[in-house]
């Protein structure tokens, strides 16, 4: 019924337009990399991605065949050939032989290069250069302005998706992410319920500590923890870098937010429901499992999404707590290895951004339905 109220005020189209505007603003940047990921490396930094669909007039350079290709005809030395490969869709509009005047002569018109040398370049890049004396040195450089149709390539995606071991990394990432998402939810949900609805000494302090822990900078804790892991590993004679280790690490880093988020939601659940259940003789455990958990589904789903995203996109924690062998290298690590040492591989960066985004979006869409209106409908909302 909220919908009806909204329509009466905003008007049917107002809402649509407003949302459309927001969506466009939010999507434009992402569109930018989607388009960029389909372009080739040199193009990305030459023209704006929004012009990718339009054909572009570009000034380029090419080299004619060298003196080896010359033939003698009617007393003149002639070099003939094509600047483009056969079937190239580009069309030349003008050409020149000096970089400072790259479009001095129109295509199809004969240019005088001095000393009796002439050059003609046709729109389809067929060229004829003639000279009264034999050519020497290297091939003549020509500059030309060509209209090229939009150029797209799937090469970047091939590079990323066909790179060796990417499938394995994908599985590794899932192996890390799924438990690292579910374990904190379970642990946090129980703790959150206790902190929201059970009375025990020290509760307020615990809440304060947990909120304080939200802010611990992750980088700070890496060295102490890795030391601990190495110590434990050496003590029990097991490797220090294991999947169990990284699950617990991600659980630890995600717990404060999970407890904080879940507690405030669970605390807002209607008191009456629990009271009536308690009167019916249900214990806290029963109340939690039968009432609180189902009612908290939207917020559990929200947290699951964020934890999943965080773990999925994480590189630092994975590099520190997991090995870099084939059996432990996660997807972000794998993609990271595809980037050059000096960065600047925009095409790989943009492409991998899209490759990694797919799984989180699937998770988002599949959990989306748990946000269904009316999960709490009919219940009375408490403070």
């Amino acid at each position, binding site marked *: 019924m909220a919908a*009806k109220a909204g329509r009466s005020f905003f008007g049917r189209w107002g809402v649509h337009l407003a949302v459309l505007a927001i969506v466009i603003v939010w999507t434009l940047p992402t569109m930018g990399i989607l388009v960029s990921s389909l372009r080739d490396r040199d193009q990305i930094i030459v023209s704006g991605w929004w012009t990718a669909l339009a054909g572009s007039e570009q000034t380029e350079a090419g080299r004619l065949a060298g003196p080896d290709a010359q033939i003698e005809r009617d007393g003149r030395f002639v070099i003939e050939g094509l600047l483009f490969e056969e079937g190239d869709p580009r069309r030349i509009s003008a050409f020149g032989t000096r970089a400072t005047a790259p479009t001095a002569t129109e295509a199809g018109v004969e240019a005088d290069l001095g000393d009796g040398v002439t050059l003609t370049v046709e729109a389809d890049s067929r060229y004829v250069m003639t000279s009264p004396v034999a050519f020497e040195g290297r091939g003549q450089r020509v500059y030309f302005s060509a209209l090229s149709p939009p150029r797209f390539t799937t090469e970047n995606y091939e590079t990323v998706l066909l790179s060796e071991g990417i499938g394995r990394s994908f599985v590794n990432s899932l192996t890390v992410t799924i*438990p690292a998402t579910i374990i904190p939810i379970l642990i946090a949900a129980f703790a959150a319920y206790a902190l929201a609805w059970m009375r025990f000494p020290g509760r307020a302090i615990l809440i304060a500590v947990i909120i304080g*822990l939200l802010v611990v900078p992750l980088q700070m804790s890496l060295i102490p923890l890795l030391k601990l892991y190495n110590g434990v590993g050496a003590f029990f004679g097991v490797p220090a870098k294991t*999947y169990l280790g990284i699950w617990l690490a991600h659980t630890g880093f995600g717990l404060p937010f999970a407890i904080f988020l879940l507690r405030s939601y669970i605390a807002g659940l209607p008191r009456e429901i629990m009271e009536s259940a308690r009167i019916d003789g249900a214990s806290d455990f029963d109340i939690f499992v039968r009432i609180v958990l189902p009612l908290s589904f939207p917020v559990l789903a929200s947290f699951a999404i964020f934890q999943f995203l965080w773990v999925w996109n994480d590189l630092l924690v994975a590099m520190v707590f997991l090995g870099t062998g084939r059996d432990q290298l996660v997807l972000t690590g794998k993609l990271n290895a595809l980037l050059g040492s000096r960065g600047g591989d925009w095409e790989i960066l943009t492409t991998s951004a899209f490759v990694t985004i797919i799984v989180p979006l699937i998770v*988002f869409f599949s959990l989306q339905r748990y946000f269904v209106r009316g999960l709490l409908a009919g219940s009375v909302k408490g403070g």
Partner: protein
Amino acid sequence: MATQIISAIIVIIVGVGGCVAYFWGANRLLELVFPARGTSGKTAIDNLRRQGFIRPWLFVGPALLILGVYLIYPVVETLRLSFLDRGGQNFVGFDNYLWAIGDREFRISILNNLLWLAVVPAVCTFLGLVIAVLTDRIWWGTIAKSLVFMPLAISFVGASVIWKFIYEYRAADQTQIGLLNAFVTWLGFEPQVWISIPFWNNLFLMVILVWIQTGFAMVILSAALRGIPDETIEAAVIDGANGFQIFWKIMIPQIWGTIAVVWTTITILVLKVFDIVLTMTNGQWNTQVLANLMFDWMFRGGGDFGRGATIAIVIMMAVIPIMIWNIRQANREADGG
């Protein structure tokens, strides 16, 4: 690989099962040791009380254990390091703190952080709420939400590449490949080097975080909005309330707790934000923030653990007001109901 998939699935089931088994088993055990049913009178009441005394700790126990190892222990370690020299060997007292107060970069970071704290949480929460309310009303709301949510799924490195293509500068006589400068030149103005304009460059960096985090605010607030019973709103409609009144008088108070959570979370995230600053400017042109400064001192060229730890402690202390506010909130909830 197939074996890994299978073992991964087994491990997932065992791991998650282990957690479930703990909570269920511990609860069962508690009921067996202190049975409330089947006994009578005083014993039953006593046992119930004992259960009530122990059960909260069974519930929060695993969380406390993990928090202790993964966060509290490092915090204590950090506090200790903040009183030691760069190699973490010699005690230097409050030298690191005194250094921080006198350091120009540190002061710039504090000011910038305050600016971030004032702008980003407010803008994210506001936009998130507006989008959540609006998208609830239209049939393609889910699609719209997914699109707003999408930036959240992109890693920080990816996001910084995206925004590089927005802020990119080329001289006036060249083709602009940055969207913003293309737009500005299309309007007839001079292109700008956005990330080096004093003061404003901070806002341009904040835009990136807003772009990423609004989706977060939206998802959480949207979940809360769906928790508002239809009857409440129907009643308001019947009373003749208009859209704005419903929004401000009915919806906002109902989800106030969630708004506070979103606000707090983003505030804390802002305190920790460093990826954006690191990849976009690395604190150049007076855009330094505390978290990046800490990172800088910790790891650049071998690092100075003492100063890095000191800055981390300062960041943690910045949360104290938020903690106090939240404790009050929590206590009020406990008393109020």
